[in-house]
């Protein structure tokens, strides 16, 4: 967020979703008819994690426990499957919104669109941080293939 006024990278997929958000108007109990925030230049996995994922999974991937819990990403056996990780990011899981929807579809439910490359990036970041050392390097093409197989677009 500190970089909000100074994008660190050219406008990426997030800026497209922001433009869509701008046109979205009110939904639910919200009346944000005027949302037109700037692109944040988040393109790399570490930045996406820091801007989005850590809101729930926490800065060190530690998760959190209240009436329910956010799964920790550190030492979670299910992360051994990169497909599980990618499908979770693409399609969402329970509380977690999907990030693989098209900008238009994401906008309909006030979710955020990430590109296949961004999803691959953040999946690789999670798979190689917080004590995780999973070797497979996910590609954007693999994300796209999984996304299409699950009819998420």
């Amino acid at each position: 967020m500190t970089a909000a006024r100074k994008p660190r990278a050219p406008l990426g997929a997030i800026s497209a979703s922001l433009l869509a958000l701008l046109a979205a108007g009110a939904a639910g109990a919200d009346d944000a008819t005027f949302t037109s925030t700037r692109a944040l230049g988040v393109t790399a996995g570490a930045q996406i994690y820091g801007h989005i994922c850590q809101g729930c999974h926490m800065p060190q991937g530690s998760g959190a426990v209240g009436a329910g819990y956010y799964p920790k990403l550190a030492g979670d056996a299910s992360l051994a499957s990169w497909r599980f990780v990618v499908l979770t990011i693409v399609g969402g899981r329970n509380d977690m919104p999907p990030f693989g929807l098209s900008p238009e579809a994401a906008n309909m439910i006030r979710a955020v669109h990430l590109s296949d490359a961004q999803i691959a990036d953040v999946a690789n970041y999670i798979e190689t941080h917080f004590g995780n050392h999973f070797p497979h390097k996910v590609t954007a093409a693999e994300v796209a293939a999984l996304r299409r197989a699950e009819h998420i677009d």
Partner: protein
Amino acid sequence: MSAQSGARAPSRRELLRMIGLTAGGAAMYQAMDALGFAAQSPYRGPVNLQGAPRGASVLVLGSGMAGMTSAYELRNAGYRVRVLEYNPRPGGRNWSLRGGDVYTELGGATQHCRFDEGLYLNPGPWRIPYHHRGLLSYCKRFGVALEPFFQVNYNAYLHSSRAFGGRPRRFREIKADYQGQVAELLAKATQQSALDVSVSKEDQEKLLESLRVWGALDTSYAYRGSVLTSSRRGYDHNPGGGLSGRPVPSQPIGLAELLDSQLWQGIASGDDFDMQTSLFEPVGGMGRIGEAFGRELGPLIHYNAKVLSIHQDSRGVSVVYEDRRAPGSNRQTAWAEWCVCTIPLPILAEIPMNVGAPLRAAIGAVPYASAIKVGLQFKRRFWEEDEEIYGGITYTDLPITNIGYPNTGYQSAGKGVLLGAYIWGLNAMEFTAMPPEERVRKTVEYGARIHEQYHEEFDNGIAVAWHRSPFTMGCFGMWSPQSRARHYEDLCRIDGRIVLAGEHCSYLNGWQEGAVTSALDAIGRLHRLAVSGGEKA
């Protein structure tokens, strides 16, 4: 209007409707309607639950609006009711943070609210439309005093960081000028015979007259700086008395600049059905409703109870819970013949519960919205003293999105609390990812670009990020048309002896009325099942 003008030409009614609505407003409303957001409350008066089986019992999980509506009505109908609540207070998302309150979010960050006496932030709902009759009826029954909530304040701001040198404009200026410029344009088109195909000569006369009145046009159908247009958009020098009272008209903003500024996007903010006058807020904070319900239910609510599992069999429902302050130390089991479960879906999805596959799938199919509210206390009410803003909302393209001014306590001495930010979507996720103190700091930094007094007058703040809320893990259920078609009925249908209720089980997502009406709908069905001996759903 005439039939001979061609099948595809807009009718007069359609034409006037196009004038009356900005394209954004109309498109937005249709999109909302498709999602069910603009649906009207189905509240039809107090629920009638006559003939409850003798000694029948219901366990209610959660003491938010849905849980307490259920518990209150079922108890009044003669059921033995017990409520389990995770928080140490009633209300759930119906909640006001006041001075002395302590809030610990997921991840452990703890904030101490340092607002002065009588000042508050509503982290959740903050307004009640007049047509939310279910919720309003409980306010009336419990004596919760209401006051007006101003959705639209003509003297609040519309602000774009990319227009007018980043300086905010008054809502009245943008609305009057947009309306006036569009009226002038349409009048010109009419006079130049551009509408001859669509509008008959006779109707053109009527149209011109209506445009003149609607747009504050002069006798030559022009919108220009004058006392007439200033009576809509405001003056450079307001009319007054005596020798100094002569008004000085202001100059309108040109159409091109107006369109380029994008500020017209804010004009329709009070036109949506959910945002139309009248709206209300409880005196003293939205939390007054939850507190009133809590008083009504008294010892029926068991606080600090964290639900660990829910198990039903042919005779009833067993719920294992523990004191959330002492995890793992003292597990207890509550039992009743029936269960109304209002636990938010992100949490319910993680609680073992033996229900059918359709309900299980529905519980996992609804992601929750990310939203942030930040309350800022200032040393004085500068928005009133310096800028004549009494209540209402300023809209901005900055990440803070909204600044909400208190609709109460006008002209009072001492400090005041603003809603400094109310954010959705990506920016809300990003604010959530920051420590609370940084959220407050960024909110002050952005807000100061609209009110420079922030620098001098800021006192303290508190920030609630709904995805960090331990008792909801999100703001409200986000249904897509596809997920609603596939899962909504499964979510609402009684499964054995368990029925779900809450805003997530409604077409009024994110509204308290959704929780209230879903509860009334659910307990009505549960009651009929109980009366029939549980033989059929």
